[in-house]
């Protein structure tokens, strides 16, 4: 399905849908996520049975602070859809989708590792890229970056976010 038709079709099930730059995005409330994904997967003309990617973005000071982003694809129809779920800063929990898409396992572990998002009912929510004893979640925007000390008169190279940025 081409993006305009796809947006319209998805809109029949999920109202908060829009189209931009040839891509269709739909926002669903956290409580309806699993339901929505099942419906998107089981409609024969949508058939979003393939989860390509899963990640998060962090927007401190905004509500919702976190967006969880699911990139779906239909192998049969070769069309794509982005599903987004917003999470509040003080409640970064979202249901795991590993039962629907086993491939989500490592994606969710990575998102936990880097963003500190808790995927409820995940079978093995462990760090995956960083060492087990790492503290913090480095892709959060408020994570401290750390600079570099030098041997010259105690000079200190400030972390990259404190240098003058263009």
């Amino acid at each position, binding site marked *: 399905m081409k993006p305009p038709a796809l947006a319209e079709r998805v809109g029949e099930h999920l109202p908060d849908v829009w189209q931009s730059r040839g891509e269709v995005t739909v926002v669903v409330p956290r409580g309806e996520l699993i339901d929505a994904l099942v419906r998107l997967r089981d409609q024969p003309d949508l058939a979003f049975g393939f989860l390509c990617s899963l990640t998060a*973005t962090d927007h401190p000071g905004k509500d919702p602070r976190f967006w969880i982003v699911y990139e779906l694809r239909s192998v049969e129809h070769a069309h794509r859809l982005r599903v987004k779920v917003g999470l509040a800063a003080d409640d970064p929990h979202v249901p795991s989708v590993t039962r629907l898409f086993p491939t989500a*396992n490592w994606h969710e572990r990575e998102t936990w590792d880097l963003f500190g998002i808790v995927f409820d009912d995940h079978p093995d929510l462990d760090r995956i890229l960083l060492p087990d004893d790492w503290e913090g979640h480095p892709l959060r925007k408020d994570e401290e970056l750390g600079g570099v000390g030098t041997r010259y008169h105690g000079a200190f190279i400030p972390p990259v976010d404190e240098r003058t940025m*263009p």
Partner: protein
Amino acid sequence: MSTGQEMDAARDGAPTVQTPVRDRVTGEVRQETMIINMGPQHPSTHGVLRLLLELDGETVIRCKPIVGYLHTGIEKNTEYRTWVQGVAYVTRADYLAPFFNELAYCLSVERLLGIEAPPRAQTIRVLLCELNRIASHLVWMATGGMELGAVSVMLYGFRERELILDIFEAVTGLRMNHSFIRPGGVIMDLPTEGPRMIAKLLDDLPARIDDYERLLDDNPIWKERNVGVGVLSAEDALAYGVTGPLLRAAGVPVDLRRDEPYLGYETYEFDVPVSTDADSYARYRLRVTEMRESLKIVEQALDRLLAEPGPVMVEDPKVAWPARLSVGPDGIGNDETYLRHIMEESMESLIHHFKMVTQGVRVPEGEVYTAVESPRGELGYYVVSNNEHRPYRVKIRDPSFVNLQAVPTMVEGGLIADAIAVIASLDPVMGGVDR
């Protein structure tokens, strides 16, 4: 994936607990399993992959892949660099397919900007990517062959890859990590000797590929090690998000170049090889066939480049890299006439150069996901812009990372020696997995 307590204990360095195992044939219960680490420092784990294996004799009962040893924070780094500098970071992720990383990133940035690279730039991108696909498959064949004892194949694979890297060096100045594809096009046109070198490769390589096939296709040891090994069904592959040669070898004909054409791939003639055997041998056959198909595309792209000249970067001075580059006696650098222009003739040009190099382009707010067919499958870039001079978020959906999740399914129940063949046929590149 199995996650027994004893496996976690093994990971933490504690003594392992033995579990009773029921023999599938005789039904007797035994207490003789052993947990070993394969990797991260192991010659046949393609870098720093670590497999936690629970063995009953030679049989793998459970397998847990552990990754992260090569994590360098590429995604985070891009958030503090300009949009153009991002190219130099992402090209280092999957280091055997640098052009694909650059391409997927730049296509994302271009979609956010609402621009398209000129036709000649697109053709050069196709040409380089397909050469890169062959080079990557050659490394797969070389390392995979070596791991299964076919040492001649290792020498041949790296020998032929060198021919392609020579072309890359002549075109981009670098053998790997080229940063050659940029938002808006490519940094420069092919050098004068480029077409001749590529034509020579097109003459030489088919016969070499014939040699590999003569050496391996009916080789009894090669077949013994690969036929029926590491079978991954289409259902399992789709459930685990597996793409690329593994998925096509399982009978699912997904190739983004054909299904969601980019760079004008719909105008090239090529076949997408598919197999239904779903084993290591099928993947070997499929990749060799893909090399031939890539050569077909390279030939067509070269013809187009010879047919008509044209710009290789968008005209818009607010997007295009300002410097004109050329190959001088000491490699690729700023063109002399361009340097004279900004240093001696035009103050405005100097200011523009300075602004573009230090700040670069401002990209309008939005988010895109762009996927290309890399040698290992769907390489996707989810890029978010906040209307700034640098990305807000760059997520790399690397095919090796996702494909590795299918390893336990392919390895468990088989022999430990077959685990080597399975990893080899999966062709993971840890730079992409760990990013």
